[in-house]
């Protein structure tokens, strides 16, 4: 099946819908900004990968999902959890390694889960989540529960061998899975051009007969439409699709990134011309669905949610050391 390129089109929405996406994207942005601050203050240690710039991908994809559909992703995962409806408090407290965190602090930024919200993690090994996402879909198909799994991974992960093993099996068995490639153009410090023989990542499924779409990942409505199409395709029993989301991360790969691999101008240009939140805001104002005062009120409300999460994440106690040998298979000789 030939991979198709996108065509520009005017996308339908209404006030309520677009305002919801705006709010969800803003929550992720403000949450991540706060996480960056807490990291700078030494409240978050270790690894922390911010999602700033990519918000439209997960919010738009989520818009195509129904209750029971699953999401699984890599290590840049805070946005996915918030989009799934997981609590800001629990996510932030996991970042600070506190007992109020989703994994009681033992998982950290990259390793959180919620069965209730059908979020299957947070995975620190690049690409390892992709076959797992296909496995979620196999179970969906076997139990005929009608659900679809969305496996998110980056342009970097798209060069992992196990991704192609997953592609093959997913198409061979027509599994209800959507592969969402978040192409933010840099695998840590290595650009797609410097790492990939075929840089149009939506074509990566061609030899498995998996249809791929390239999507403007900065436009939440375009993401929504693509997600709906791919999820319907999967739910109808036609197997997987690949969505290549052309997106961009504004911050470093992690908190210790010298950012020498791209120019400041490149970042500034994307921020000023393609920012997903600014675009949604302009659309809302353009249609006169909101005014500046209402937007300010939303921002205030979201800042309060994030401030509360940060407060919780700094005051929730550290897990008791005895937690370190819980959730394992055998009693631990903690000598």
């Amino acid at each position, binding site marked *: 099946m030939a991979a198709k390129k996108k065509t520009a089109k005017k996308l339908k929405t209404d006030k309520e819908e677009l305002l919801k996406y705006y709010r969800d994207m803003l929550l992720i942005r403000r949450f991540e900004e706060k996480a960056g601050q807490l990291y700078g203050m030494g409240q978050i240690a270790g690894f922390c990968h911010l999602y700033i710039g990519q918000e439209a991908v997960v919010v738009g994809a989520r818009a195509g999902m129904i209750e029971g559909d699953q999401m699984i992703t890599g290590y840049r995962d805070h946005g996915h959890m918030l989009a799934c409806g997981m609590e800001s408090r629990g996510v932030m407290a*996991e970042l600070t390694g506190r007992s109020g965190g989703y994994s009681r602090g*033992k998982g*950290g930024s990259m*390793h959180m889960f919620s069965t209730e919200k059908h979020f299957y993690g947070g995975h620190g090994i690049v690409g390892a989540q992709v076959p797992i996402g296909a496995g979620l879909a196999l179970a969906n198909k076997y139990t005929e529960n009608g659900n679809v799994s969305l496996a998110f991974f980056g342009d970097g992960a798209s060069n992992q061998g196990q991704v192609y093993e997953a592609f093959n099996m997913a198409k061979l068995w027509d599994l209800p899975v959507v592969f969402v490639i978040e192409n933010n153009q840099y695998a840590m410090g290595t650009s797609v051009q410097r*790492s990939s023989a075929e840089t149009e990542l939506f074509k990566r499924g061609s030899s498995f007969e998996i249809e791929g779409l390239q999507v403007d990942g900065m436009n939440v409505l375009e993401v929504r439409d693509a997600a709906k199409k791919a999820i319907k395709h999967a739910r109808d029993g036609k197997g997987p699709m690949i969505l290549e989301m052309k997106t961009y991360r504004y911050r470093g790969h992690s908190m210790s990134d010298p950012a020498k691999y791209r120019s400041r101008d490149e970042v500034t240009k994307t921020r000023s011309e393609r920012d997903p939140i600014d675009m949604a805001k302009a659309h809302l104002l353009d249609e006169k669905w909101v005014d500046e005062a209402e937007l300010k009120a939303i921002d205030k409300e979201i800042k309060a949610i994030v401030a509360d999460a940060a407060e919780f994440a700094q005051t929730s106690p550290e897990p008791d050391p005895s937690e*370190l040998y819980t959730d394992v298979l055998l009693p*631990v*000789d903690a*000598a």
Partner: protein
Amino acid sequence: MGQATKRMNMIEAIRDALDVKMTEDSDVLVFGEDVGYFGGVFRATAGLQEKHGLHRCFDTPISEGGIVGIAIGMASNGLRPVAEIQFADYIYPGYDQIASEAARLRYRSNGEFSAPLTIRTPVGGGIYGGTTHSQSPEALFTHIAGLKTVIPSNPYDAKGMLITAIEDNDPVLFLEPKRLYNGPFYGDPHIPSVSWAKHELGDVPEGHYTVPFGSVRRITEGPDLTILAYGTMVWVAEAAAKEAGVQADILDLRALLPLDIEAIAESVKKTGRCLILHEATRTSGFGAELSAQVAEACFFSLEAPIVRVTGWDTPYPHAQEWAYFPGPKRVMNGIRKVMGQA
């Protein structure tokens, strides 16, 4: 001797070893994820692409199985590749290639082929990396016949051992304790650390020298007990022995395979007591092998059961890292136990 020296941290020492070998031998190529343009996530390869060119130091896709597989092909076809796996936690997709191909090529081909390949990878905890950026998987590799596994604990050894690894005609897994890159670490972030610039083992000869595999480094000498350690735990042992007021023979193993069992046995026969340390989880850890070998060689000289202080049999946590890490407190408990005081 008489070679000029320079103060280096462990990263600089590793980079210098790569530079020396790349300069000497055009067959030496250095590559891995973010190794070329970016200079490596821990900066170990910074500047090498600029100096030696795009074809000598290059970036790979995020494909650990492919990285190791390609390196084996290069190595068996006349080159001396040095591949970096960004964190040891990422090495598992490459495990099949390491275990079934690299380590078996010489045997399988009746000595016709070998894979003179070095795989560098950072190991160990101490940087709040959580489950997938802190592991110590050395025992998975020492279990493989046909592979050498080494782990330096300081800049001097790191440079000399890396040159030895690159010159070796068989595959070498070169583990870098990432917490030691900047200075010795005593297992407790509250103990002020020194940088390698202020440590005698940060005094690194310029140019070419080697540290052979299969010989231990004696960190301190003493009659009370023998402490076997490697990587970060070498410095934890030093701090704990000092704190416990014992005079210990602390042996930095440096190479796990080949293992300097002669020096180990000589020490244990002298002290009659043996404490074994590692960060890795306990069950089937390398300490189990050490314990067996010491028991085989020194049974009639032992005055107390051999004691192991190791990571627990759990995944590596994000929170409470200092409760989890086998730091000086737990090592001191181990010392008391093997001294018959607990």
